[in-house]
């Protein structure tokens, strides 16, 4: 497999150019047995459907893919979306600080969510590294930031499937622990300049 045949493309672009069956066939090539949720989001083998595709159509999230155009396979992907953090009981002083003097009626902080991110297990890091996938996802978020503002990025790290080594990887990028969501997930955040 040659790297020069690997393209970076948005799922929206594929939707405009290909019919659903062809898209599903391509998405079904993604394999991630170590992190089944990353695979199921892109293509659910049982339902023969894709949540990523349905989310894209409903503007719920945006998915970007690397596709090996020689073998028609997904090499890697990430999905990003808009998220909010709700805050209760924050002092008026801190609220004003967040909003540069303006006191909001409701207490929300807008954020960008990196909801999914992964590489097909059939492709090793010589094709694409985790660092590259994360950098591309942050670059896409930066494009949105440049248009609509916002600087907070959140990501959930799975305590079950993702080893401490991966948690360290995100921390080295600058992600900090925000809150434990449940037994398996911890939400981390990054301030994007």
């Amino acid at each position, binding site marked *: 497999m040659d790297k020069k045949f690997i*393209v970076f*493309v948005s799922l929206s672009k594929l939707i405009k150019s290909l019919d659903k069956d062809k898209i599903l066939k391509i998405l079904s090539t993604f394999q991630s047995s170590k992190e089944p949720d990353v695979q199921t989001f892109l293509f659910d083998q049982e339902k023969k459907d894709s949540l990523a595709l349905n989310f894209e159509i409903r503007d719920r999230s945006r998915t970007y893919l690397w596709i090996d155009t020689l073998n028609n396979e997904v090499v890697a992907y990430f999905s990003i979306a808009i998220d909010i*953090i709700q*805050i209760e009981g924050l002092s008026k002083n801190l609220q004003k600080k967040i909003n540069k003097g303006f006191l909001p009626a409701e207490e929300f902080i807008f954020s960008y*969510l990196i*909801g999914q991110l992964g590489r097909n297990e059939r492709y090793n890091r010589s094709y694409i590294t985790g660092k590259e996938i994360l950098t*591309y996802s942050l670059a896409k978020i930066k494009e949105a930031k440049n248009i609509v503002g916002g*600087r907070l990025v959140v990501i959930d790290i799975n305590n079950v499937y993702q080893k401490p080594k991966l948690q360290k990887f995100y921390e080295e990028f*600058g992600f900090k622990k925000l809150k434990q969501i449940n037994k398996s997930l911890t939400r981390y955040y990054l301030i994007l300049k």
Partner: protein
Amino acid sequence: MATESFFYHIKFTNKDERELKQLIEDLILSKNGYEISQEDLQKIKEKEKKSEKVLSEWIKNL
């Protein structure tokens, strides 16, 4: 990452004061933030440009 991440929104209350203060300080100061290098941004733009060319041919032949 997890599919449920799309459906879960963090809610902070008085009990989470320490975490919230840290987040707000980082948000206000932003000096602790991450900046993508111009080199990386340039590489990504080039990759997107090259991809466009390959993509149109690939889509035609699918």
